[in-house]
């Protein structure tokens, strides 16, 4: 794993060498503020918490995280740099993990830059900062789940637009798997236990409990498993598709 850090640093250098990083951060901050104040009714509620801020994160990530993830492998394949990368003495695991961690850290960095809203709520009232901290953690974990899905699907194509659309669709299914919209499709022909299983895959359910300040080990394990599963799939897809 010596080369994990090397790949991570190169990836981050690429984000900041292009407008990708700056555009993402600015849009992310503007959108999250707009959602919080206009749709969330941050002031009107007159409650000192960040619920209206975190409530919209799943929907924000649904589009912004695939936008970061779509380039991870599709771009490497399109420009042929994947051949350069994978013939250097690094393992595929280092490459997959290094790229993922760089993007995840970058999203984490953007998330931290929302700190003015935390200052605001502390100036206006006395919020439970433990709950806020838990919600930040949950938000970052959920972003990791979305990102792992996007990274895997990015390895499946050399076209970034295709990668983006596939990732949004799959993320959307994961987001909503607890809602009737998705469950009704399965209810007719799958046993109840499996339908319950699918319902349990929902990002919304697991994020919901963390963002209320309840850090349940099961929710942490859930996001860990989602990330692990999709990154393993990423390795396999990369191996299968790199020759095309």
């Amino acid at each position: 794993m010596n080369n994990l850090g090397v790949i991570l640093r190169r990836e981050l250098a690429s984000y900041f060498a292009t407008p990708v990083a700056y555009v993402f951060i600015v849009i992310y901050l503007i959108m999250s503020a707009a959602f919080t104040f206009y749709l969330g009714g941050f002031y009107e509620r007159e409650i000192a918490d960040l619920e209206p801020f975190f409530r919209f994160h799943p929907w924000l990530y649904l589009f912004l995280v695939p936008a970061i993830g779509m380039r991870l492998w599709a771009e490497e394949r399109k420009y042929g740099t994947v051949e350069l990368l994978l013939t250097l003495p690094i393992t595929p695991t280092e490459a997959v993990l290094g790229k993922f961690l760089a993007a995840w850290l970058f999203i984490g960095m953007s998330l931290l830059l929302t700190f003015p809203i935390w200052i605001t709520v502390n100036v206006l009232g006395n919020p439970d900062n433990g709950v806020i901290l838990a919600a930040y953690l949950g938000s970052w974990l959920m972003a990791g789940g979305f990102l792992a899905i996007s990274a895997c699907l990015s390895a499946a194509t050399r076209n970034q637009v295709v990668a983006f659309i596939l990732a949004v669709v799959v993320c959307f299914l994961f987001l909503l798997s607890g809602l009737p919209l998705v469950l009704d499709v399965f209810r007719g022909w799958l046993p109840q236990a499996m339908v319950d299983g699918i319902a349990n895959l929902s990002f919304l359910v697991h994020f919901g409990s963390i963002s209320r300040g309840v850090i349940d080990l099961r929710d942490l394990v859930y996001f860990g498993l989602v990330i692990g599963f999709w990154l393993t799939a990423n390795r396999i897809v990369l191996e299968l598709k790199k020759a095309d």
Partner: protein
Amino acid sequence: MIEAKSLTRRYGPLLAVDRISFQVEPGTVLGFLGPNGAGKSTTMKMLTGFLAPSAGTAVIHGHDIRTDSLAARRQMGYLPEGAPLYGELSVERFLKFVAETRGFRGSEAHRRVAAAAERLSLGEVMAQTIETLSKGFKRRVGLAQAILHDPPVLILDEPTDGLDPNQKHEVRRLIREMAPDKITIISTHILEEVDALCTRAMIIARGRLLADDSPTGLLARSRYHNAVTLTMDDLETAASRLGALAESREVEVRRGHLTVFPSSQGNLFDAVTRTIHDEGWKVDQLQLEAGRLDEVFRTVTDAGEAA
């Protein structure tokens, strides 16, 4: 030493590389010669560990590419086809990244990058973003990352493709400079390059190894090998007179040139010069042919196709 053992690669139903075997010793510049889509690049991708062989394997200085891929890759510097690079990075940042993946840290990494940059005259563009560089400079950056760790094996896929004649010359000079103690494998479809650069050449077509010889050995397979070509005013007379020589097998007049092909006896060139002298012909041009690589290439690949 590199030893390829029945390297085979399939893409679905397509057999891209078909049981290619060879051995290469240090000091060799080996040229893979073949039409586009012949399997040259695929063979290189397998040697460098990018693609797993469908069957067979290769051993790079004692490290099997299937079972010991990382160690095998440490022995190699590789320039993939088209020299792909991370365009958004500066030359310096990119080379530093490659140096780090090669296990160099801190001042050693810095020293390696500086040495490679010096060797390829990249000094003036080190701070520049790669995508803003000219094609020639990009190729040099690609070569710099390949030689940075001074590998005993260099694998260069079409290193001069798309460069102008001066840049081609420059890249060939660099390869020749680095060659003496290394194994260098280049692929090309430019025939002159084999003559200019390689000590050994392999003709590959349709995934199969059709010829494996030195460039001179390949030239000797040409029907033009040791033929004599001349130009003068009265080609008809010359053709009938030279065709009658015991040393000549056949004559051919084409585009104002007369070519006499040698028979198995005597020295044709001597016989022709003697005849010219005796007859008092005024000859504009007289040339002993080494052989024509393009003709050998066509013959070998056509025969491969027919087989």
